[in-house]
């Protein structure tokens, strides 16, 4: 699923997930995480995978930790009494959207305890169990008294206008709504609020109301949210667009580990696939789907990338005699089957395919695996120019040398968990490295990027 809204992940906050006890990371477009084994690099990347499992993927029974076997394995020091807290800050279509969610396995059942959503510090929505609280900031309401009144007047024609439940400014400053029982099956706030709502707008504000439309999901109180226009635009969208954007953004996280070569080289039944799996086991189906959709072509980004790195090689999705999909390689025109395809070619295909899917976040664990220097340079350049938020982890000195000091996060494991630190004074360090004729990677390995140069 490709998100049509512009969603940029700006910050991640994590409490109690694996070795990440208390972490707040401001993200740029391109982020390189370096550190020794077991420092927590992969845990940081897996946090996004867990969040996607927990918030978007429809799994029953609801056990989003199952790929790590148990909650014990994903919570800080195995302390199951602790909740896992995740916070994400996005820019969605010009809005600053902050979403925080608390997971717990209290009572032996994994569930979401609490969720909070803030839009531009003007609109606050919180859900705890079946209780939904909606609040608009006092400053926002005070600053827009007339427009708010006009919007409320406009809703009089809405079905709840016939009831006695008139919306007042007091309601906007703090309302509580008890959601019906069947909402308790829903697992996340963005989805909870993706319910039929009527919207209208006046000047630079919109008002969206969930109404008692006689549906089985009957709500006792109306849910009303007023949204100001974002800084960048004149007209505000209905609030559901933002909820949808948030949900799509999380759904569009792609987290890649090294491709599972045995699986990716094995033909499988054709399926329409649009979400690349973590170990690229469905890569051939994704390529096959594109190939069919584009009339026998693979995306230009992939075709050109392969031509540059492997000038004599072409690849095409193909079918076995029993109708299974696999990738065929042509080396100077000679047909070769998957066992003859280099692992590095699969790795490049995987990363380029992930970029082509336009994710809201692309996290690649140990980017350097299977890639020679030029291929690594090409893949890094493609990631930097991909217009998505990219996180790569690496042990590779080559990658550390390829990127700017400003792109680096140094990961360390402390008694208080994993910490990610940026280089505090890159300009000064560059001068020092120049004077000493030491490379960035050497300074990382031998201690030049020491604590005195880092900031949390």
């Amino acid at each position, binding site marked *: 699923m490709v998100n049509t809204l512009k969603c940029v992940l700006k910050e991640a906050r994590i409490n109690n997930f694996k070795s990440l006890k208390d972490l707040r990371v401001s993200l740029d477009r391109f982020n390189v995480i370096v550190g020794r084994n077991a420092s927590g690099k992969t845990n940081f990347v897996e946090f996004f995978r867990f969040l996607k499992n927990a918030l978007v993927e429809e799994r029953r029974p609801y056990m989003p930790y199952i790929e790590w076997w148990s909650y014990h394995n994903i919570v800080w020091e195995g302390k199951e009494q602790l909740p896992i807290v995740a916070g994400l800050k996005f820019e969605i279509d010009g809005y600053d959207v902050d979403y925080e969610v608390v997971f717990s396995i209290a009572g032996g059942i994994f569930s979401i305890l609490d969720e909070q959503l803030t839009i531009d510090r003007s609109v606050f929505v919180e859900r705890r169990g079946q209780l939904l609280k909606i609040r608009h900031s006092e400053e926002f309401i005070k600053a827009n008294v007339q427009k708010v009144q006009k919007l409320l007047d406009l809703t009089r024609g809405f079905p709840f206008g016939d009831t006695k439940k008139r919306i007042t400014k007091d309601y906007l400053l703090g309302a509580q709504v008890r959601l019906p029982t069947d909402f308790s099956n829903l697992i996340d706030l963005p989805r909870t609020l993706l319910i039929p709502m009527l919207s209208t707008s006046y000047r630079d504000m919109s008002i969206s109301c969930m109404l008692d439309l006689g549906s089985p999901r009957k709500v006792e109180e109306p849910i009303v949210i007023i949204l100001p226009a974002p800084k960048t635009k004149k007209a505000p969208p209905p609030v559901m667009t933002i909820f949808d954007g948030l949900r799509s953004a999380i759904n569009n996280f792609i987290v890649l580990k090294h491709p599972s070569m045995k699986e990716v080289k094995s033909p499988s039944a054709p399926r329409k696939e649009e979400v690349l799996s973590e170990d690229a086991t469905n890569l051939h189906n994704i390529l096959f789907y594109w190939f069919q959709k584009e009339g026998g072509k693979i995306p*230009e*980004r992939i075709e*050109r*990338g392969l031509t*540059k790195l492997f000038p004599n090689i072409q690849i095409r999705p193909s079918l076995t005699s029993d109708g299974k999909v696999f990738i065929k390689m042509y080396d100077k025109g000679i047909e070769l089957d998957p066992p003859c395809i280099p692992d590095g070619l699969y790795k490049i295909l995987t990363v380029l395919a992930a970029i082509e899917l336009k994710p809201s976040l692309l996290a690649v664990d140990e980017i350097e695996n299977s890639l020679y220097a*030029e291929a690594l*340079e*090409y893949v890094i*350049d*493609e990631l930097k*120019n991909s217009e998505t938020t990219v996180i790569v982890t690496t042990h590779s000195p080559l990658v550390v*040398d*390829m*990127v*700017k000091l400003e792109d680096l996060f140094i990961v360390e494991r402390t008694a208080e968990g994993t910490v990610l630190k940026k280089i505090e004074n890159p300009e000064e360090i*560059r001068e020092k*490295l*120049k004077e000493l*004729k*030491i*490379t*960035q990677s050497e300074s990382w390995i031998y201690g030049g990027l020491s604590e005195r140069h880092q900031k949390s």
Partner: protein
Amino acid sequence: MIICEDRYGVGFFEQLANRLKNEGFIPGYLNVKAARFYGPCNTKLDRQIKALAYLSCFNFFLVVADADGESQQRVKERIEGHVPKELRNSCNTVVLRHEVEEWICYDKGIQIDDKPSIILKEKEGYEKYKLDSYVAKLDINRLRKGCVSFCDFIECLLKCPEC
């Protein structure tokens, strides 16, 4: 050896040099290759130039760097600070005001009021990986008449001695 800022530039400059040779803008004896460097203030550049000079036997270097809106002179100084002293006479630097896509914009008569690659993306769906496909479309004569950085680029290539 042309040393440029990203892998897209490698294909672009190698193809461009071949075209310039074929069309007689630079001497046919030049054997031009390209490599990527890791930014104007990266100590890796010293080692890269040494390796290319002493191990791969290249006798002339042209570093093409992007100023990305910064002072071109400052970027040039940074780069030259990383060129080994004994090889400074064999090394030239061309700093582009933004990036190499400004040549494409100039050629198409597009006014540059933003990053050229972004302008091209908005106008014609440009992506960096398509850069080398523009070599064949460039009007070299037009660029030579008025595009300062392109003229500097050709002038530097003409300084390259015959082996």
